[in-house]
């Protein structure tokens, strides 16, 4: 054992230095910069006193929460169906449903514009049918659709894997005790999927909180937190506010990831 340990220490020593320098120093810097604004007031207090910042925070949390709820509902229904039924072309359907995973946020934003933008599919069809052109790509609805686009496949895969791991005897036992399909779903299946739903839901929330590419591409008329950070830092050179907002966003996401990790016991991450 001691020999193995010595071996491990030799391997890891250079890493310790790297980690300290590259991982921790910038985070410490970020925390320090976030404390005081240019005019000397506490930045966090300043943020809470500025309606524009608060509105952005609220909008981001709202869109992320709504995305999470809708994703969980839709993905769970589809996942349960796909986990339980075998039909020709099932593999192809799963491949199509999970294909959006391959598109980064920018392309997803682009897809939303193709769907619901000024020359989009929804607009064309709605104009032909009702005479009125429906365009929602640049609104909160567009952002929501974009977030659903990359959230649903992730949650779908997680919940499907969990549903396939469920012991079928659990449902059979409940049925033998007299429970019909809806009761089995409510009392047995959904509670058993609980950890998977919590984990993928929290992950979905964290991803939606941090998504930048989609929002940026849609140039939406609602502002979200990552865009605000970008604007404050790059355009307004307001490092203190950008730092404080980053810490705030990091803390919220970190909380969601912690929930996800403790529910699933495995490694999960925010949006890249």
């Amino acid at each position, binding site marked *: 054992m001691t020999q193995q340990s010595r071996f491990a220490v030799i391997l890891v020593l250079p890493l310790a230095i790297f980690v300290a320098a590259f991982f921790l120093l910038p985070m410490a810097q970020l925390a320090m910069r976030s404390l005081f604004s240019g005019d000397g007031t506490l930045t966090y207090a300043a943020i809470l006193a500025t309606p524009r910042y608060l509105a952005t925070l609220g909008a981001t949390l709202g869109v992320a929460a709504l995305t999470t709820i809708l994703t969980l509902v839709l993905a769970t229904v589809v996942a349960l169906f796909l986990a339980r039924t075998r039909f020709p072309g099932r593999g192809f359907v799963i491949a199509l449903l999970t294909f959006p995973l391959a598109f980064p946020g920018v392309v997803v934003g682009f897809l939303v514009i193709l769907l619901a933008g000024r020359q989009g599919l929804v607009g064309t069809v709605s104009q032909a049918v009702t005479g009125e052109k429906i365009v929602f790509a640049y609104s909160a609805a567009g952002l929501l659709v974009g977030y659903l686009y990359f959230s649903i496949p992730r949650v779908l895969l997680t919940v499907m894997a969990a549903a396939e791991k469920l*012991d079928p*005897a*659990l449902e*059979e*036992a*409940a*049925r*033998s*005790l*007299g*429970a*019909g399909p809806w*009761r089995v779903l409510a*009392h*047995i299946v959904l*509670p*058993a999927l*609980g950890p998977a739903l919590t984990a993928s839901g929290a992950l979905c929330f964290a991803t939606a909180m941090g998504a930048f590419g989609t929002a940026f591409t849609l140039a939406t008329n609602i502002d979200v937190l990552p865009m605000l950070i970008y604007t404050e830092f790059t355009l307004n050179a307001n490092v203190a506010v950008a730092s404080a907002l980053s810490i705030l966003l990091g803390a919220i996401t970190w909380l969601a990831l912690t929930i996800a990790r403790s529910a699933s016991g495995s490694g999960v991450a925010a949006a890249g």
Partner: protein
Amino acid sequence: MTGIAITVEACGKTFADGTRALSPISFEIGAGESIAILGPSGCGKTTALRIIAGLEGPDPGGRVLFDGADVTPLPIERRNVGMVFQSYALFPNMSVIENVAYGLRVRGVPRQPRLGQAQEVLAMMRLAEFGGRRIDQLSGGQRQRVALARALAVKPRVLLLDEPLTALDAALREDLRAEIDGLLRTLRISSVYVTHDQAEAMVLGDRIIVMERGAIAQIGTPRDIYFRPASRFVASFVGTMNRLEGAIRGGVFETRAGRLPVDRADAAEAVAFFRPEAARLTPADGAPLRFRVARCHFLGAAQRVYLDAGEGAPALIADTDNRRTWQPGQETGLAVSASDLLFL
């Protein structure tokens, strides 16, 4: 909780992909009787149980009757059967007592009376103090006892057990086997116990149904099955069986190792089967059959002596008491009573 009679009539099962899991089989289970269905994996024993349970429907033409009433079209949730699974299948999101009370909850029994009834059943299974535990705080044996309590709490018409002891280790398996035995004797509930373990089938079945490749090989009491197996398959699947080849001429069974008197017609090729405990080792001189000892395993309560039956043939096994010692290579006589020889 006295049981009902169950009739299985021509129930076969062919799956959607055309595989036949079960040829049409028929049998009856008397009210209060314990039936063990015994067979190797893939013999259709679990499929038979699932058809009785209502988890699978039989192929067209098959019927399942509970006390004479046709229940074939009823799904399991309307048959009032108690089921116990190999994987325990306890609900992880409920406490022990909530698991046991679940059947009563589904039946609309209010919270207080249902928890009271569940507590009674737990007490009967000597689990009275475990009601508040989470499932993952229980050992395997305790889990299966909770599963039994859960199945019994709804006063089912029949108790169906699908290899309930297979996931447990040997010592625990024996304890719980005795416990289930006591339970079935006390409650006199009709039961069907599926297993691949012959000791379980022997102890728990009033009668045993031995199955082989989707069909019934034999139905009978444990003694019938052990002493009068209907086929070579049953003979070798239930207990250990020795096999001796030879020919019968004039009331004498002639083998490579010697001659035994038998009461059978002449046959150019005959195969005799006998149990290890029916083989008596005697001094070599003047013995009807003579062998060399290949090896001897001292097992504590008994010794298992392996006899060299010649090139290519499996060793013969004789179980003897634990006192005398046997050396490999030593010559020994072997005697088997004519009544202990089975020609199959």
